[in-house]
């Protein structure tokens, strides 16, 4: 069960629209290493996690990813306000505009729509936790790449916050993996599934 909180986890107040930037940032909404995939991945993996600590971090981080999805959506929405036809055509935003006007749609910067192929829920804690650690680093790299191209401090600040959260999540998942391995037989340190074997 969830309850909505009517606030963003970190404020987004962008003064200057920039559809070109929106088209890149939307990758963190519906792209291969975006927040949709993250939330679905963690909230799905929870069900087969054998240990309480891991159920706890997957639930909380999965929920936080939904809050990040909302922040990325807010950034894209605010970057595509009040556009005129010239801005839409000059910024390369026209293809997106034709398909979605200025609606926020889960799609990658490359144009590929969101797919569950971006994530895995393998039912094996060692496998899933390694996927989660990799996913946090891939998301962090994507935020780094976006920050390389964006100068507007109104856009940079929330992106820097989101990048920082990937690092915190990596730390927590690392602790989760340590907790899991401490409970496994030393002979099966890397290949044993306590929820199935």
């Amino acid at each position: 069960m969830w309850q909505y909180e009517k606030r963003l986890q970190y404020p987004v107040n962008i003064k200057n629209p920039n559809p070109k930037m929106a088209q890149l940032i939307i990758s963190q909404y519906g792209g291969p290493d975006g927040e949709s995939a993250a939330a679905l991945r963690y909230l799905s993996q929870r069900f087969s996690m054998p240990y309480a600590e891991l159920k706890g971090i997957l639930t909380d981080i999965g929920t936080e990813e939904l809050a990040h999805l909302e922040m990325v959506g807010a950034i894209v929405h605010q970057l595509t306000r009040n556009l005129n036809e010239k801005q839409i055509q000059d910024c390369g935003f026209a293809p997106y505009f034709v398909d979605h006007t200025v609606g926020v749609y889960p799609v990658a910067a490359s144009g590929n729509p969101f797919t569950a192929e971006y994530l895995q829920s393998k039912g094996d804690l060692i496998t899933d936790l390694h996927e989660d650690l990799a996913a946090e680093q891939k998301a962090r790299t994507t935020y780094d790449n976006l920050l390389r191209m964006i100068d507007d401090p109104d856009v940079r600040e929330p992106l820097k916050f989101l990048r920082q959260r990937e690092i915190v999540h990596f730390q927590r998942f690392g602790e989760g993996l340590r907790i899991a391995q401490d409970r496994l037989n030393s002979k099966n340190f890397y290949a044993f599934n306590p929820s199935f074997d």
Partner: protein
Amino acid sequence: MVCKTAIEKRISAYHFALYDLALFLNTHPCDQQAMQLRHVYKERLCKLIDEYEQHYGKYIRTQDDVEHSWSEWICDPWPWDVAKGDGCCVAI
């Protein structure tokens, strides 16, 4: 009187600190220092919300906070709306 935006920002910061401590506690459930810090931050957050409500009316975070009229909940701004004052609240 404390500026509304400033107090909202402080409330938000305490919510964040409490959440981040909760995340830490998931993998360190016996850490007494983190639990203690959570209690301290919870008290400070309650005081801040009291202070906010003295000046600006009910602090609405979830639907459970609504007291009188449902328009307290549905009224603008929603979280993705641009803050008022910059004249940019209109969508395309």
